[in-house]
Every structure is written in structure tokens, then in C-alpha cells.
């Protein structure tokens, strides 16, 4: 090897390494910032007040439980919608659709992923919520369910796009092997292709959930933002207030350094920990599955 080539290689490896480290550093810095701004909450607000059921910050009532249940409600609803539809669509595009249809569908789905959520929020508030109110005979159409449908719609393109790539990466030989053994098309998809692409499909689901739990604008527009503690399944059909909407609606006007300000950062911390938990759970599932596969093969 010549010296100049070595030099080029040196620069490139360092650059790649620096960008790799920077990702970790940025996450650490963000978390550090959240903790620094959020932790004073414990000194300023009593723990019993935080676990109260009333969120009314201008009167110093900082019960964050309704916000947590609100976010969970909407996110779980959205996941239940996005996962079956998303993976179904991915399977159709990757395994069943003829080539020409595939070439239309894939870019269309990716276009959908680029749709700004505010636009979907407008559709939700003008079309979906009035329709749901009449159709389900609810007092108002601004409910957790409306938010779930909208978020499901927002998460589907992400799920489809990533899951389809994972299915596409499964070697053709796997399917041919299954067919040779006399498996039907459905058996091949369900028993061979999908398990083989499991880790990619799981990543798709995680990214979808992440998209749903972090989404702000659309949720703020259609869920009604009433901080009511969700205690039963019927809460799905009443208004809720999510953590993201609370931060977005209130951060703009809050005095920096005030108790309210610290509590909003504390909510940010909770949100961060929830998505961290989801990610860890998912990767441990993938990891365990991989180990099992290795054991069977050996």
C-alpha cells in the first residue's frame, strides 16, 4: 500500500468513527440536559402531587398520571392499528403483488411517510372526528380513538417501508425450499419468510411505535387534550391529553426555570425512559430469538 492511500484511509476511518461516537454523545447530552432541567422537579413538587390525578399547572397542580395514561392509550391504539395493517401491506407488496403493482405501491407508501402530520391533523379535525362522532354516537369526536386512528395512519408507512425491506432481504432459496416441500403460499409466508425476517419486522414495529408515541402535532389537534385519567377501556372513546401535546402546548409560554418548566422537562424524561424501555424490550426479544435459532442450527 502506498503512503497517500494510507493517509486517505486514516482520515476516512476517523471520520466514520467520529460520526459513530457523536451519535452516542448526542444522546448522552440530550439525556443529560433532560435530567438537569427535569430533576429539580423532585425538590419543588411533592411526589404525592406528581401522582395526583389533576393536571392544572397554572394552579400548581402537577398530576402527570393522566398524561401518561393518555399517551399510552393513544399509542397502544395506534400500534394495534398500524402493526397488522403495516405488516399485511408489507407482505402483500413483497410476496404477493405482481411486479408492476409493487413498483407503484412502494413509492406511494414512501410518499405517504413524507406527509406532514399537521396536514393529517387537519384531515382528522375536519373529516375524521365529525364522522366518528356521528357514527359512534359520541359526545365529541375529539377522542383517544380518533388520535389512535390518525397515529396508526402516520405509523403505517414507516412499518410498511422497513418491514418490506426486511422481507425482501430473505433469500429466495428459503421460499423455494418451502415450496419444494409442498407448502402453500400462505404457509411459506407465515412459517418461513416472516420468521426469517423477524428482526427486521420487529424493528419496523418499534419504529412505528416510536413514531406514534413521539408524534405531537396531529395528536394535539384531535385528542381534545382533556387531562382525564384513563381507567377503563371506554376511556378510548373520550378525550385524553398526551405527554407530547402537553409539552408542545405549554413549553412556549412557561417562564424558564419555574416549577412548571421543570415539570415539563420531567415529562420529557418520562417519555424518553418509556421509549428507551420499549427499545430495550424489543432488542432483547430479537437477541433471544437469534440465540434460539443458533442453538437449533448447531
Amino acid at each position, binding site marked *: 500500500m502506498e503512503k497517500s492511500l494510507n493517509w486517505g484511509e486514516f482520515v476516512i476511518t476517523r471520520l466514520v468513527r467520529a460520526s459513530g461516537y457523536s451519535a452516542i454523545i448526542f444522546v448522552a447530552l440530550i439525556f443529560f440536559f433532560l435530567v438537569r432541567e427535569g430533576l429539580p422537579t423532585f425538590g419543588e413538587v411533592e411526589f404525592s402531587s406528581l401522582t395526583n390525578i389533576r393536571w392544572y399547572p397554572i394552579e400548581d397542580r402537577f398530576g402527570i398520571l393522566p398524561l401518561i395514561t393518555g399517551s399510552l392509550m393513544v399509542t397502544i391504539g395506534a400500534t394495534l392499528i398500524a402493526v397488522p395493517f403495516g405488516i399485511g401491506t408489507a407482505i402483500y407488496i413483497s410476496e404477493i403483488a405482481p411486479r408492476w403493482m409493487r413498483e407503484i405501491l412502494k413509492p406511494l407508501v414512501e410518499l405517504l411517510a413524507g406527509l406532514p402530520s399537521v396536514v393529517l391533523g387537519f384531515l382528522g379535525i375536519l373529516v375524521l372526528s365529525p364522522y366518528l362522532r356521528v357514527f359512534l354516537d359520541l359526545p365529541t369526536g375529539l377522542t383517544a380513538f380518533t388520535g389512535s386512528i390518525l397515529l396508526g395512519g402516520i405509523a403505517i408507512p414507516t412499518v410498511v417501508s422497513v418491514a418490506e425491506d426486511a422481507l425482501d432481504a430473505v433469500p429466495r432459496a428459503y421460499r423455494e425450499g418451502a415450496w419444494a416441500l409442498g407448502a402453500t403460499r400462505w404457509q411459506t409466508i407465515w412459517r418461513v419468510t416472516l420468521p426469517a425476517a423477524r428482526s427486521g419486522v420487529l424493528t419496523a414495529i418499534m419504529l412505528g411505535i416510536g413514531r406514534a408515541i413521539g408524534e405531537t402535532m396531529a395528536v394535539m389537534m384531535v385528542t381534545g387534550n382533556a387531562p382525564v385519567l384513563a381507567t377503563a377501556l371506554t376511556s378510548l372513546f373520550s378525550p385524553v391529553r398526551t405527554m407530547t401535546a402537553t409539552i408542545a402546548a*405549554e413549553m412556549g409560554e412557561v417562564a424558564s426555570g419555574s416549577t412548571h418548566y421543570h415539570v415539563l422537562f420531567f415529562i420529557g424524561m418520562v417519555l424518553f425512559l418509556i421509549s428507551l424501555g420499549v427499545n430495550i424490550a424489543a432488542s432483547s426479544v430479537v437477541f433471544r430469538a437469534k440465540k434460539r435459532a443458533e442453538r437449533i442450527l448447531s
Partner: protein
Amino acid sequence: MKRAIIFFLLFSFFFISCSPNSSSDTPSDSSALYIENKGSDTIVNLALAWAERYQSQHPEVRISVTGGGSGTGIASLINGTVDIANASRQIKEEEIEDAKSNGIDPVEFIVARDAIAVIVNPENPVDQLTLKQISDIYSGKYTNWSEVGGDDRPIVRLSRETNSGTHVYFLETVLRLGNSEDETLFSMDTLLLPSSEGIIVEVRQNPNAIGYDGLGYVPDDLKMIAIAEEEGGSYVLPAISTVNDKTYPIARDLYMYTDGEPTGVIKEYLEWILSAEAQEIVAELGFVPVGGE
């Protein structure tokens, strides 16, 4: 590893040094006249709109507008750090005393009025309510329209977000009926919508809904409720005339305070604010203009 860190640091310095220089092309007219204007968040948008229009007509005048709340504005006036304080309430006795002892003599100007209309869907047969009834609706005591003379429908309460000045004013004047000892809160299931537009859209399509908004924002296709201060009183619909003759109960004056009778550029600015042209901006922003003063 160490070298990687050094590299990263170099990298970040590179980015820092690339940040654009702050632009310095603001007109450096030495004869520029400054007006410091600070106070109520309710008025801040109006004050900004005025300042913008006035500066475009008088480029030699520079007006800086900041919010912070009525109390902040008045405190700054007392400390002598602003020329004009904005307030959505009248100055208090003790504030006047503080000012006097600081050698400041606050002079009051009513620059606009703010009225809140209570709105419902046109399909809703309810036309009039007392303040007490509206308070009971929003605090959750009434949950069905039949309890206040309407159809048998659930009541869906709509409100602005808690950071809106309108929300606080409505809480104090309507929910608590002006009683500062009162601890009544909005019912927990009150929908908090981030914008006026959100409230209007929901009221327009939902016959169960009740909402409130600045008078100037209410479109013609929604029904405004006539309000009586107490039972047996006369029910008054919100309108510019009823706000100006003070018969409509949910309305307040918006003030500007100066130190002593204003002179020079501040005087000219305040005179312009009370002119027809500036009061047109008042109406555009959803407030009620002060007529012919």
C-alpha cells in the same frame, strides 16, 4: 480513542466557526427614537401589530414590545425601565403608591376592549344563560343541556389552553364569578384546544359543544349566547355597542400606562393608537375598538 475525541472536538470547532455572523445591517440612525413597551400577554400581539404599522410609517421611531404579564409591565413602569406599560387590568392602589414613592406618576389610557363571547352550535336551542349557569357548566355541575333548558344532550366543554390569557380571564371572571377566594376549577374533562380555530371548528360541527372566544374571532355561522349577570337580570348579546356601554358582563378594558402626561414621540404614538386607523387593527385582532375617544 484519545485521538478520536480530539478529532471530534476539532470537528465541533469547525462547525462553531462556520456559524453565520450576526447581521449588522440594522439602520444605525443616531436620531432613532426608542419606545420601550412591555406588559400584558393579552395585549402583546396587538401592541406588536401597532408597533409594526407605526414603525413602517415613522421609520425614525423604534418600538420594542415585550410581554410578561400585566404585573411585570406595571412593575417595570414603576422601576422606570419602560416608557409604556400594557395591562389587561387597572393599576392597583398599592401599585400607584409604589410608583408615587419612586417619583413616577402613572397616567392611564384605555386603548382597546376585550370581550369574550360564549358560543354554541346553531342547532342548540339554548339562547341565553346567566353567568352562574355558565360557571356551573364549566365546573362540571351541569353535564346535560336539558339542565339549562336545552335538548337532552351531553355537554362538551371547550376551552383554550391554560397558557392563554383568555383562559385565565374566563376562569377568573366566569368560573369564579370574579371572586378571588373562589377555588373553582374547570371540570377535568374540559377539552383544552390549542387555538381559537380549533374551538370554532368543533362548535361548528358539534351540537353538544359550548366554547368561548374573543368576540372578534366568532364567525357568523355560530350562535352567541346572551348573558345575564345574575338571574332576573337582562340577557345581553355581545356586540361592539354592548361592550362599549358596559352592559355585556364578560368584557374588560385594556390599558396602557405612561409616566406622567406623555410628551414628544410617546404622545404621538398614543394619539395614533387611539386613531381610527390603529383601532381598525384592534378589530382585526379580535378585540373591540374604543369608539370615538
